[in-house]
């Protein structure tokens, strides 16, 4: 498992001496503490520093569904993992090589995930026997040998922080709250991170409360100096910048990128953006982000419920806006009937599902990709719609633009399947040139398109474009194009209600055919098969792109040939997918569900794909996936069967 081992150059080298700098190619750090300890902020600042330094990186926040679960408990632990490297990074990392634990619960909750021999930096302040008992530690794990296999730095981080900020006149509680900045300062020193951007950040964030600002800055600097002056931290590390394509970069989360992509879809089409949304984890940040950008003609409507969110978006689409609704799986269940109406009305709409663990309320803050079949089939009747998925946080931008393009061009609701990992995870994003984005032409109907029996002009709302099969989009306010649409079946062409059996059969087929036409506009699938000699294709979709890429890299490093392809479009599939599948002897489909894409592929192409399936609420582990791939590429006889857990 080279991914994990590369982080193991731990600081307990035999003869530490001052100013030793060890070069590492990659590091995975997890910051963990109570949900009130500011671990998300600490992690994202460290990320920002690493990005500014030029590393490639990937992050994974992990927090409880409760806003403030009881302090010091295991359910209350919140963590933020960052993987940074001097090369292209694909995942947030399987096993952290460094854990920063701000209390006993954070230590206990994360210990099992660590790489062998990992470094643990732990705040001893709360290691009282009462606190330990509360989470099921009979003995103090710092003293009973539990951590013998790790390199442990245990000290009273809270106490040191309180001492460092004592001159600022804060209450003890407020003073202690700066401990996350102490930890950030120490880690920034250890990994040679520049802290300037964090200093600027603190100055801005706490501009209105100078005492707190100064205390946080002091804590940050004290943490840095603590590393420099304390014998225990004799070694610091460096991870050189990663080579990256020229351009301007920023770090971005999936939800922010998705919001920006929707705005870009609006500017590229010239349609005002109307978001109808009801708050739901993990999609709410898209609502928050868009509500900040009204200057782009963005209207955000916080609806009374999920149904009203999608209803209002559809109403706005009828009026000529780019109607968008954002939610997570439970919300899609509620919106299903209105999405079906949009299929029937053939109006553009973007439906974003930031998938989370299900079914029902499931795991609100965890990731999963088990809503693919819901997106495909979760409506009554034959109700097809295009489905697309982003593959990384930054890719959410392009996926949103693509969703808008398909929705507007084909007059159809489009389902965009993000997930919790993409939503909250982040990575460096090369900011695109707007000129490179597709132009989206709403091509509104402006005049009658048909002649009635008396030779007079009339408007037929279901007279289709021959190429796209899209119907005309005639906005209220356009004289002469008055028409009525609705959920009842319409006759193709003139659009009046029709109960005619032949017409219904025709309309069902034409709605399906229209969605299939989207495939005509798609580029050929990209297949990564460096020598063209692979017998196994690993095919994925959505956020598994990173783990699959890392696993494939690992397998190739061991000398085996394996091909990789990733689907952006899940309905319709790209036209060349069938041929591609048949080109390989074996196809492995890793998914964070029980085999939903596998099911679709088997049904459509009659190809016996194998699944690799985990539904743990967490991203797939690259190293485990690599093991599964190795079983399929090793010479025959050495195990054609997948492990029990991986059979889908």
């Amino acid at each position, binding site marked *: 498992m080279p991914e994990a081992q590369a982080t193991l150059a731990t600081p307990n080298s035999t003869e530490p001496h001052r100013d030793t700098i060890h070069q590492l190619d990659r590091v995975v750090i997890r910051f963990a503490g109570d949900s009130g300890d500011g671990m998300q902020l600490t992690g994202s600042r460290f990320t*920002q520093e690493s990005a*500014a330094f*030029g590393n490639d990186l990937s992050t994974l926040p992990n927090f409880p569904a409760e806003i403030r679960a009881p302090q010091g408990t295991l359910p209350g632990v919140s963590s933020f993992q960052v993987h940074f490297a001097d090369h292209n990074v694909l995942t947030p990392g399987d096993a952290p090589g460094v854990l920063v634990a701000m209390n006993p619960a954070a230590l206990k909750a994360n210990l099992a995930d660590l790489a062998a021999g990992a470094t643990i930096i732990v705040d001893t302040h709360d290691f009282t026997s009462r606190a330990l008992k509360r989470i099921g530690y009979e003995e103090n794990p710092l003293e009973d040998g539990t951590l013998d296999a790790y390199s442990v730095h245990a000290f009273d981080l809270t106490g040191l922080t309180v001492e460092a900020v004592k001159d600022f006149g804060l209450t003890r509680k407020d003073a202690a709250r700066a401990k996350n900045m102490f930890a950030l300062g120490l880690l920034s020193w250890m990994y040679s991170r520049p802290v300037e951007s964090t200093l600027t950040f603190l100055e801005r964030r706490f501009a209105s409360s100078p005492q707190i600002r100064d205390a946080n800055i002091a804590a940050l600097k004290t943490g840095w100096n603590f590393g420099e002056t304390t014998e225990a931290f004799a070694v610091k590390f460096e991870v050189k910048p990663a080579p*990256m*394509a*020229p*351009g*301007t*970069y*920023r*770090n971005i989360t999936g939800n922010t990128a998705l919001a*920006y992509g929707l*705005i*870009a879809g609006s*500017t590229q089409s010239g349609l*005002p953006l*109307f978001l*109808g949304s009801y708050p739901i984890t993990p999609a709410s940040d898209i609502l928050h982000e868009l509500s900040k*950008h*009204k*200057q*782009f*003609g*963005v*209207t955000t*409507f916080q*609806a*009374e*419920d999920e*149904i*009203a969110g999608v*209803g*209002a*978006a*559809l*109403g706005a*689409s*009828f*009026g*000529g*806006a780019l*109607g968008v609704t954002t939610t997570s799986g439970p919300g899609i269940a509620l919106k299903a*009937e*209105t999405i*079906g*109406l949009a299929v029937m*009305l053939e109006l553009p709409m973007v439906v974003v599902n930031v998938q989370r663990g299900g079914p029902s309320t499931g795991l609100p803050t965890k990731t999963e990709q088990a809503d693919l079949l819901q997106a495909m089939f979760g409506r009554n009747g034959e109700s097809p719609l295009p489905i697309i998925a982003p593959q990384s946080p930054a890719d959410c931008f392009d996926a949103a633009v693509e969703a808008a393009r398909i929705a507007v061009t084909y007059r159809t609701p489009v389902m965009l399947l993000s997930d919790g990992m993409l939503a909250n995870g982040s990575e460096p994003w090369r*900011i695109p040139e*707007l000129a490179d984005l597709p132009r989206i032409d709403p091509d509104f109907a402006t005049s009658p398109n048909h002649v009635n029996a008396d030779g007079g002009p009339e408007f037929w709302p279901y007279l289709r474009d021959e190429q796209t099969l899209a119907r005309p989009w005639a906005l*209220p*306010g356009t*004289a002469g194009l*008055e*028409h*009525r*649409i*609705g*959920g009842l079946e319409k006759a193709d062409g003139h659009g*009046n*209600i029709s109960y005619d059996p032949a017409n219904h059969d025709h309309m069902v087929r034409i709605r399906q055919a229209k969605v299939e036409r989207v495939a005509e506009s798609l580029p050929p699938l990209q297949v990564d098969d460096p020598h063209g000699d692979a017998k196994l294709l690993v095919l994925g979709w959505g956020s598994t792109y990173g783990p699959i890429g890392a696993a494939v890299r690992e397998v190739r490093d061991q000398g085996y040939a394996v091909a990789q392809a990733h689907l952006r479009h899940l309905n319709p599939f790209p036209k060349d997918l069938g041929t591609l599948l048949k080109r390989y002897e074996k196809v492995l489909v890793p998914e964070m569900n029980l085999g939903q894409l596998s099911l679709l592929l088997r049904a459509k192409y009659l190809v016996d794909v194998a699944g690799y399936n985990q539904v743990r609420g967490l991203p797939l582990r690259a190293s485990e996936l690599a093991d599964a791939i190795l079983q399929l590429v090793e010479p025959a006889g050495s195990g054609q069967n997948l492990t029990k857990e991986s059979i889908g």
Partner: protein
Amino acid sequence: MTSTRLPFPGLRDVPASEAPQSRKDYTSDQEVRWCPGCGDYAVLAAVQGFLPELGLKRENIVFISGIGCSSRFPYYLDTFGMHSIHGRAPAIATGLATSRPDLSVWVVTGDGDALSIGGNHLIHALRRNVNMTILLFNNRIYGLTKGQYSPTSESGKITKSSPKGSPDSPLNPVSLALGAEASFVARTIDSDRQHLTSVLSAATAHRGTSLVEIYQNCPIFNDGAFDAVKNPETKADAVIPLVHGEPIRFGPKGEDGLGIRGIVRDPLSGSLRVVDVADVGADRILVHDAHAADPTTAFALSRLTGSGHLTQAPIGIFRSVERQTYDDVAREQVRSASEGITDRSTALDNLLHSGDTWTVV
């Protein structure tokens, strides 16, 4: 005939027609398919008569309906229209009205559609006060699904789904609307064309959500539900007319030419009750104030509607007050945020480059 009373506040941004219009302009080529004698015909005729009088550009009028007999309404009007899904019309109309101030947006709904499956959307549309007019056809029965009791059916009603009598208690749509902070609430009757038209006129003039409850007879499944307020013989006793600025009097006419009965406020409980005017004196009779900021009296008036088989009901405009509208505020936020932005692409480029960026050469 055009009465050019435009612009009403409720139609401030809706363009007026240059040419005079007639009822024919608003009649679509679709065959009307309600049951013979259905009250919906009368309402359709009233609306088709009223719209040309209103004189808006026909293409700027949109009717959105849900599901139910009355929700077929948009098909019969030659405007823009959407026959949507059960209960959701107010939500769909909210999106449309918010993004298009130049449209006159109407919702057509029924008692099942608006008060049962769509109750949530109705109350939230009312509290937001989005600029639109909601016509709630109340026939106190499910017609399209062939005769089950509805959320306005009286308790104990025998229907297909309640052979032993409905165990439900009914909602009073006017009370509900007032409780939901509605800024305009009225009640009218399908067969009273003149009253219906005057209420429609006031409802469209109003800026914000106007809720108009229309007592609508369903001759097939609930015939005679509103006979008390329609029958010339009982109507004088059953209809409590609400006219802004006038004392609330009804019943056979007395010497002063007004009804012999009236509404007074009980000084102890504050609630309203019916009295013989002769017993208390005409000057003690409540004068209707539809513009009162406090909805308490309007609510008390709504409670004079019986909840069982209808014998008495106030008819008219219960409440009409000016209040902030959601869509005006939402659009103003967008407008003011957009001030000074001449080129959205440049602004977008700046947004994408905001925050901490770095350049790789």
